[in-house]
């Protein structure tokens, strides 16, 4: 196939597979945080802050694969 090289395929796979783990992780994180908030509504504020920090750290793994995907795409 002309004009399409394997780097493009690789970049798609990189972001797709790389988003899989963090997606599951963020889902678990938010689910557990909501559970905690439902049990103890007075702790909701603290839980929310901790949840956002956790999401940001889990998300950064997906961002590394985003960088790899962009690097492959512009190759």
């Amino acid at each position, binding site marked *: 196939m002309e004009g399409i090289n394997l780097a493009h395929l690789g970049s798609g796979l990189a972001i797709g597979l790389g988003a899989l783990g963090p997606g599951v992780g963020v889902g678990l994180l938010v689910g557990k945080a909501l559970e905690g908030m439902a049990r103890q509504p007075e702790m909701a504020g603290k839980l929310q*802050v901790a949840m*956002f920090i956790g999401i*940001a750290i889990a998300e950064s793994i997906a*961002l*590394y694969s985003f960088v790899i995907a962009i690097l492959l795409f*512009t190759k």
Partner: protein
Amino acid sequence: MQQIFNEFNLRPESQGGHGERIFEVINLEPINHFIRSLHLPIDVTINKAVVMMWLSAIVAFALIYYAGHGRGLVARGLKNAMEAIFQFVKLDIVEEQLGHAGQSYLPFVGGLFFFILFNNLLGLIPAGFSAGSNLSVTATLAGMVLIVIIYTGIKNQGPLRYWVNLAPGGLPKPLYVLMYPIEFISLLSKPFSLAVRLFANLLAGHIVIFSMLTLMFLFGLWLAPVSLAVATAIYAFEIFVAFMQAYIFTILTSVYLGQALHPEH
């Protein structure tokens, strides 16, 4: 209308369009610009991103100055909104993470917050440009954060203790050969993820709005209501993202500052 349609002829090349070149329209200029800026004669051209940064700095300064000065005990309208946001930064970001001793970091963290917030919001005005969707801008902000973190750590723990405290204490001695490189890389990966997070979120938002609008050129103008409605919904979500990313950037900055201020023992 037909002319616009022809100009954006995004059908595949086999059908006489140039759909494969859609990414040339989006072009990945922010990344190429960053890579170019790593070469030595540093490019100091005043481009769109620089102008938007000046603008957002001026807007942030003017609004905060307006909110902080003037008469009347009870703030109303715009003043009240600015006061609420400032209160949020002060209480929920700085004092929550750094404690009362961290008050001296409020100007730095608050400045970052308002600068990033207005950068993001100005990018949402049509024909505007979000400086945060340029990797050079976010990398500079994150590099600044890294310098402040290391300076805080060295100032509070001493030049040698800071580097010793990077790895947690109480581990078997041979393990430290492994721990120090890992902790050093994790220190460097903090600003890296800060920069890429802000950049990726803003760029992705713009690309998604753009792709939703190009749907009507791809499938025909009958899809215009749907594509406009979806683009508007995503635009509204982008306003939320603008606040969210400013919040995430500053709260992570203050978490890292807190780690440098109060090390684990």
